[in-house]
């Protein structure tokens, strides 16, 4: 297995790592850096459990080769520090088993950064990228909306 060295900018740090060209970003985050917040759920881009942030956009880490992320800024759930959405997920009971949670939170975070005044349509457009099997999504809806409301009120 041929490996090459690349530099990834992860959660604010430059990290050098040897990867196969065929390795996905998800694999490298988990197996090389121990950043296991991003979860494997389908490895097919369908479930969103592996969502991270790449240069400000939510990204399914299973749909990106690690080599493609070279030179880009990657934020995983471990890189979020006290984001409002994390607190709201707790307060609104927006998770149960917690497996889809990091992916949902990263996607929500990207939405909040990009569209702080998002309406129902935009929220749905973003959040239908992730699957949760425990909740009825209603709690997730409450969590994201309470962050958006707080932000847009200028508080």
């Amino acid at each position, binding site marked *: 297995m041929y490996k090459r060295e690349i530099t990834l900018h992860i959660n604010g740090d430059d990290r050098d790592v040897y990867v196969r060209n065929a390795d996905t970003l998800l694999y490298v985050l988990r197996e090389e850096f121990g950043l296991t917040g991003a979860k494997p759920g389908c490895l*097919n*881009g369908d479930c969103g459990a592996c969502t991270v942030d790449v240069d400000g956009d939510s990204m399914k880490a299973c749909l990106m080769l690690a080599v493609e992320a070279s030179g880009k800024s990657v934020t995983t759930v471990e890189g979020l520090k006290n984001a409002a959405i994390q607190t709201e997920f707790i307060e609104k009971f927006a998770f149960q088993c917690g497996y889809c949670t990091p992916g949902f939170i990263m996607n929500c975070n990207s939405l909040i950064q990009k569209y702080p005044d998002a309406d129902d349509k935009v929220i749905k457009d973003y959040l239908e990228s992730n699957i949760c099997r425990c909740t009825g999504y209603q709690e997730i809806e409450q969590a994201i909306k309470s962050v958006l409301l707080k932000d847009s009120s200028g508080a």
Partner: protein
Amino acid sequence: MISFDFEYYKPTSINEAIQLFQSLVEQGKDPIYFSGGTEVITLGRVNQIQTDAVIDIKGIPECLVLKKDEQKVTLGSAQSLTKIREMQLFPFLNKAIVEIADHTARNKITLGGNICANIIYRETVLPLLLTNSEVAIASPNGLKQVPLQEVFNQKLNLEKGEFLVQVTTEQSEIDCPFVCVKKRRQWDVGYPLITTAALKKEGYIKAAFSGLSDYPFYDPMIEKSLNNKQLSKEERVDQALQQISVPILDDVNGSAEYRLFVLKNTMLDVLDELEGVGNV
């Protein structure tokens, strides 16, 4: 996880990409161009795509162009569907884009990737076909600009070593009234049962379909029936259905017979939308 290994190149010019391809072929390799790469990764995982070298075209400036001048809109093939949508240059195309996969996936899927995909739906092709868009194709003999309709037959017919660089559409075409409707087996995300795109230009309705057969297509005979103003809308649609000459899909998303039922209703809606309810 992909079990085969491949080389990865990210050229910064069209020429470099073309030359890379040729030299890899000369080395006995079987390279493929890589744009969003989502298919290489997901189909590679199950060995439905195999390659020993990928050439990532996301470093080529021409492939990243998103621009609008007075007459036309040009979209780079390596731009993500999300970026294209955010630019809001092409509402008809956007309507097709917004139903493809999901938002996060569209941050990675590119226009070129969707047009050239193995997946049978390739829904971005529908509005591009109907708006007489042109494609810029990089080939060993240089860049060529051709009407999409000429090179798209079931799929984009590229010669070995060629790749799609840009899509160009006349603003006048973009300004035409349009409809794009995606019907699924159930709920709001996922592959289509049928996606129908239609556009009205100079009073004439053109329509193209994805998911009805195992490739996207448009058919002048179907359009002719839809535009037969001698008949009522129902009759026109019935006649159009008679004109379908492609094999109709029968799969987990729906039976062939059900697809025809859905298509019929969709065509009626398209006529209502583009001609106004009650207009015969």
